[in-house]
C-alpha cells in the first residue's frame, strides 16, 4: 500500500514538474508550435534561467505553442554541444542556450567544437562586467585602483567567480591591459561561485572583485560595494552612478552575452521562424516582465550580426589569452 502511495506521488510530482513550463495559450500571432530548449548546465544556473525565462515569455505571449526543457550538463557545456551536432537531424526543433564561455572554452580546448559548428540563431540578452570594491574601501575610482596596483602589485589581489583564464579573470586582465599595465602581473584569485567571491571582498581577503554588472548593482544599491567601472560603452540606466571604463580613460568594453544556437544544417525556414519569434518577443509585455525580473539587458544580435559579434569576441579574447599564456 505504501509502495502504491509513493509511486503515485512520484508520478504526480513528475507530472506537475512537466506541466510547469508549458502553459500553452492559443494566440493569433503564433509563429511556432513548439520549441525544445537544450540547457548545457544543471537546474538553477544562468543558462537554465535564460532558457526557461525565454520559453516562458514566448509561450505566454502566444508566439510559441509549447516549450519544453532538457538539462544536459557536463564538460562545461561540451556534452550538450556534442549531442546537438551528432544528432543534428532529429534536433531541428531544438534551441540550445549558451553564452560567452562557449567562445572561451572552445579556445582553451575544453571541448573540440566551436560556435561555427552550430547554426547561429540569435544573441538575445547580455550583461556588462564591472570591477567593484567594498563600500569602506579607500579606493574610489579606477585611477585609485591602478595606483594601489602600482604601489603593491602582490597585495592588490583581484578576485572573481571563474577559473583563471575564465571570464572574470579575462575582464580584469583586459581592463588592466587597456590601462597600460602588465596583465600578467595581476594577482587573480578564483572562487567557485560569485557569492563566495563577494564574501571574500567584504571580508577584505581581496581588494577588488571582477563580476557581472547586474550582480554588482544589487549590492551597490544595498550600500555594500562601490562600482569602480563598468565595461559598457556608456553609463547604464539601471545604475547611472557607475562610471564606465571608457570615461576613465581605459578604452575597453565587454559584454557577456547569452543567446541561442540550433543544430548544424538547420533548414532555412526553421531558422527564420526561430528568429522571427525571438525578434517579436522583445515587444511583448511578457518578455519585459521576465527581463525586468532578472535584470537582463536586451542585446539583440540575430544571424549574421551574431556571427560578426562572436568572431570579434573570439579574436579579442584569443589575443588576450595568448598573452596571458593560457593558449
Amino acid at each position: 500500500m505504501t509502495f502504491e502511495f509513493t509511486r503515485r506521488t512520484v508520478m504526480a510530482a513528475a507530472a506537475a514538474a512537466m506541466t510547469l513550463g508549458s502553459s500553452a495559450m492559443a494566440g493569433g500571432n503564433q509563429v511556432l508550435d513548439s520549441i525544445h530548449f537544450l540547457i548545457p548546465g544543471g537546474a538553477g544556473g544562468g543558462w537554465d534561467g535564460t532558457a526557461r525565462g525565454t520559453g516562458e515569455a514566448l509561450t505566454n505571449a502566444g508566439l510559441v505553442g509549447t516549450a519544453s526543457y532538457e538539462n544536459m550538463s557536463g564538460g562545461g557545456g561540451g556534452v550538450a554541444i556534442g549531442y546537438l551536432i551528432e544528432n543534428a537531424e532529429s534536433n531541428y526543433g531544438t534551441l540550445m542556450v549558451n553564452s560567452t564561455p562557449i567562445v572561451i572554452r572552445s579556445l582553451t580546448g575544453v571541448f573540440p567544437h566551436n560556435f561555427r559548428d552550430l547554426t547561429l540563431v540569435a544573441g538575445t540578452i547580455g550583461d556588462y562586467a564591472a570591477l567593484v570594491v567594498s563600500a569602506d574601501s579607500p579606493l574610489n575610482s579606477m585611477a585609485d585602483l591602478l595606483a594601489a596596483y602600482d604601489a603593491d602589485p602582490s597585495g592588490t589581489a583581484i578576485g572573481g567567480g571563474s577559473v583563471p583564464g575564465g571570464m572574470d579573470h579575462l575582464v580584469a586582465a583586459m581592463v588592466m591591459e587597456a590601462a597600460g599595465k602588465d596583465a600578467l602581473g595581476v594577482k587573480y584569485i578564483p572562487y567557485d561561485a560569485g557569492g563566495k567571491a563577494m564574501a571574500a571582498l567584504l571580508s577584505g581577503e581581496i581588494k577588488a572583485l571582477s563580476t557581472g554588472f547586474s550582480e554588482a548593482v544589487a549590492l551597490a544599491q544595498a550600500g555594500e560595494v562601490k562600482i569602480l567601472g563598468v565595461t559598457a560603452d556608456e553609463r547604464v540606466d539601471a545604475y547611472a552612478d557607475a562610471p564606465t571604463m571608457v570615461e576613465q580613460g581605459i578604452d575597453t568594453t565587454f559584454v557577456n552575452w547569452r543567446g541561442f544556437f540550433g543544430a548544424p544544417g538547420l533548414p532555412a525556414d526553421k531558422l527564420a521562424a526561430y528568429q522571427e519569434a525571438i525578434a517579436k518577443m522583445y515587444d511583448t509585455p511578457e518578455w519585459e516582465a521576465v527581463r525586468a525580473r532578472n535584470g537582463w539587458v536586451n542585446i539583440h544580435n540575430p544571424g549574421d550580426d551574431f556571427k560578426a559579434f562572436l568572431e570579434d569576441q573570439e579574436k579579442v579574447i584569443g589575443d588576450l589569452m595568448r598573452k596571458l599564456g593560457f593558449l
Partner: protein
Amino acid sequence: MIEGLMIGLGAAFSLQNLLMVIAGCLIGTFIGMLPGLGPMSIIAIMIPVAITIGDPSAALILLAGVYYGAIFGGSTSSILLNAPGVAGTVATSFDGYPLARKGMAGKALTIAAISSFAGGTIGAILLMVFAPMLSTVALLFHSAEYFALMVVGLSAIAAFAGTGNVAKAILMTVLGLIMATVGEGALFNMPRFTMGLMDLQSGFSFITLAMAMFALPEAIFLVLNPARSAQSGGDAGKITGLRVSREEARKIVPVISRQSIQGFFIGVLPGAGATIASFLGYAVERNIASKEEQEEFGHGSIKGLAAPETANNAACTGSFVPLLTLGIPGSGTTAILLGALIALNVTPGPRLMIDDPQIFWAVIISMYIGNLVLLILNLPLIPYIAKVLAIPRNYLIPFILFFTLMGSYIGQNNSTELLILVGMGVGATILKFADYPLAPLLIGFILGSMLEDNFSRSMQLYDGIGFVLDRPMTLGLLVIAALLVVIPSYRARRARARQQGVAEGD
C-alpha cells in the same frame, strides 16, 4: 523586535499562507525523498510557481516549506535506504541506517524529525536575536580559515576509524581526496585526470558517488547474502518502538541543544554550510560521549543520529544570516533563494531589515511555521513511510536499485553517470567485503575540493605558506585538528600499554 515579530505573525497566519506552507512541506518532503533531487533542484523547480503567487511573503513561506520539507525528505532516504541524496545527510546515514536495519526505522525517523525540528527552530530563534550582529562574524573567515576548518573536518574522520582499522580509514580518506581532484577545479582552467573523457570534465558527481558508496553496495550485499537479508527482513518488518522512551529523550536532549547552537554558527559562515556542520556535529558528539556510548556510534546510536540531523537543520537556518543581512549566498540552495527573492523584488542586504521589515520577519516566521507544520504532518506519516522496509526483500532490492540509478541520472541527465555508478558500485562492494569503511572515502571526496581550493587561494594570497603563522585563527584551528588526530591514538596506545602491563603483572 516584538513589533517585527507581530508583523511577521500577522502575515504568516492567514489562511492562504497556512495552505502555502502545508503545500510546500508536502511537496518538499515527497520530492526530497527521491535521491538526486535535493533542496536546490526542488526550489529551482518551485520558483516559477512562487513567482506566480506574487505576494513575497506567501512565496517565501511556500519556498521555506519546500526547503525544510526537502531536507527532511532527504534524511528519510538516508535512514531507510542508506541513500543520502544530499551531502548534508551523509552523516545521517551513519547511524540512521543501522537503526533502521535493527527494526527501529520508525524510531529513527521520529528522532530525525524531532532533531530537525529542534535544530530548525532553535536556529530560527538564534537568527532572530543575533542576525544583525552576526553579519560581521560571517566575514571573519578568510580562505585560510576555511582551509583550516576543512582540515578539522577531515581529522574528525578519526571518529569513524576509532573502533576499526585506522590505516584503512586513512587510506579511504586519501582515495576520496584523490577522486575529488578529477575534473575542472575552481583553480585551474584545464581539466585534470579526465583521461580525455568529456563526461569526467566536471568531475565525479556527488550524488553518483554517494549512491555508489552507500546504497548500491548495500543492495548488492543483500543479494549476495540472502541469509542476512532474510533475517534482517524479518526484523525490519516489525517496526517496533516508534515512540522515543524517556531515557532516550534524556540522552538526546543535550545533543540537540549543543548541536543546534554549533550547527547554527557553522552555517553562518558562507562556504561551510550544512555538510561541514553535520560532520563536525557527529564528530564532536562522538568524542564527548562516554566510552560505552562511543562503541555504539556507527552501529545505530541515537545520539549519532540526532547530532547530524540537528546540526544540518540549524546550519541551514544559519546560512540565512549572510543571505539576509549581506545579500551573500553561502550555499547553492541559498543562491537559488537569492534569485527567487530578487525576482520578487526583494533585495536582501543590510537595508532589508530597515526597508522591508515585514519581509525579513515573514521569512523568519515562515521558518518556525515550516518546521512546525513539517513535524505535525510527518509524525503521523512515519509508520507508513517506515513500512517501506517491510516490503519483502525481493521486491525492495529492485526498488532500491531503481532509486539509486534514477538518482544519479536525474541530476545530470547523462547516461554515462549510470556506467560510472555501476563501475564504482562494484568497486565499493569489493572494498566493503574487504572491510574497508566507505564513509571516509565519501567525506574525503566532499571536503577534498573545498580543501584544495581554499589552500591554494591562501597560498596565492600570501605568496606561500605564511598564512598559517600570520593568521592566529588558522593556527588555532589547525592545532585543534592535530589534537583530534593525536589524542585518540595516544589514548588507544596508553590503554593498550596498560593492558600489556596488567598481562605481564599476571
